[in-house]
């Protein structure tokens, strides 16, 4: 069917042209108004769908703040005992953050992402951590456009965060999503003791993500004999499906 072949080639040419123009940045004059056209009403609709769930957040905020304070005290104690005595480090100053409103969530059925209304014009870059107002990590910036950005949440299938367990061994591992609403910490050495209730924070081993951001708590530990690593099932400290306002750490 020569007509069909022409049709397919014509469509493929148009798509290739659009992708090329996008890569060269030539389509920005169309993309910018398109994002504005979608972004504002999308934000209104998103907030309308979340309003009924924020009624109970006042009690949840208090619990989140207590978790943050517990993690902060534990880390301060450790840094005072070893790093300051040996290396004369000064304590890291508080991060530079910018606030952002959540204006939408994942547009694809398989992703767990949020759309926020801050982008590269505001200093947002890919890889920057995103926290709630209680200092709890919720995800990372995966793409930053001029006036909006996409946040990959912790429980997304492609989310990977270097983390530390606040136990005796300060076990390090990798917090990964893709397990529904929960996350797992993998590659924890088998010989290190972790227990339900242990707090998980970022390890600082990942570029751009400072140490000490709270991720969650251990709910269960999975061990198999003769395996080099064990894994922990975590519950995140932030309610990832109820976020309205977040902060992006732009300077750490």
């Amino acid at each position, binding site marked *: 069917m020569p007509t069909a072949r022409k049709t397919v080639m014509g*469509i493929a040419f148009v*798509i290739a042209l659009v992708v090329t123009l996008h890569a060269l940045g030539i389509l920005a004059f169309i993309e910018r108004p*398109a994002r504005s056209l979608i972004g504002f009403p999308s934000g209104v*609709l998103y907030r309308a769908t979340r309003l009924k769930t924020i009624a109970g957040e006042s009690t949840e905020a208090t619990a989140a703040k207590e978790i943050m304070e517990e993690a902060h005290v534990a880390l301060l104690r450790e840094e005072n005992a070893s790093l300051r005595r040996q290396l004369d480090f000064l304590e890291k100053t508080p991060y530079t953050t910018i606030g952002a409103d959540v204006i939408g969530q994942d547009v694809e*059925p398989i992703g767990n*992402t949020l759309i926020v209304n801050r982008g590269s014009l505001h200093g947002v870059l890919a890889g920057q951590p995103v926290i709630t107002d209680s200092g709890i990590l919720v995800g990372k910036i995966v793409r930053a456009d001029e006036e909006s950005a*996409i946040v990959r949440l912790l429980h997304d299938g*492609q989310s990977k965060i270097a983390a530390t367990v606040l136990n005796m061994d300060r076990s390090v591992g990798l917090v990964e999503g893709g397990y529904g609403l929960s996350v797992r910490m993998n590659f924890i050495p088998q010989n290190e003791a972790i227990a339900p209730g242990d707090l998980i924070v970022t390890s600082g081993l990942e570029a751009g993500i400072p140490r000490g951001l709270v991720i969650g708590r251990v709910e269960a530990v999975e061990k198999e004999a003769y395996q080099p690593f064990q894994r922990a099932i975590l519950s995140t400290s932030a309610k990832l499906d109820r976020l309205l306002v977040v902060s992006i750490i732009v300077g750490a």
Partner: protein
Amino acid sequence: MKSFGRFLFSLACIVIVVLFHLALRSLLPPPWHHLNVIFVFLILLLLIQETGMIIWISFCIHFFIELYAVGPFGILIFSGTFAALIAFWLYQYFFTNQSWYTAAVLSFLAVLFHRVLYSGALVSLQVVGHGAAPPWRAMASVYGWEMLLTAGVTSLLYLGIARPFRSQKRTVPIEWRA
């Protein structure tokens, strides 16, 4: 002036469909939020208007969606546009009757081809080193729900709303109409 008015009307419809698609993902509980409103709209438009313009409408809609997608730019446009083209061909040459089960099968196959092409593009990019391996098991479950729900809703809407607006049963093959 008339064509400019039609262009604005078409653009408004596209924006409304995109917003509806995004809103329902937040509003509906699982597994209903997997419903693909875009293909419900495209298949109903195909059955009512019998026009090949659904291909370019799909192109525009997925261009808007692509602005907020995490994956490499172009994958959704590619899979969405060619899925609409395949749906149009299937309607033109195979499912030539206008009935609720045609609506169901067309929308099921359109979403199936959309996801097959999308997954194929992801695999191709992974092979050349762009992007991580997709979570296949989760994708299969989600896409299965998406196909079933989209087919069901399309057939119900066709029975309830679209059927009174469709043209007379065609006796000649349909052609491209702008």
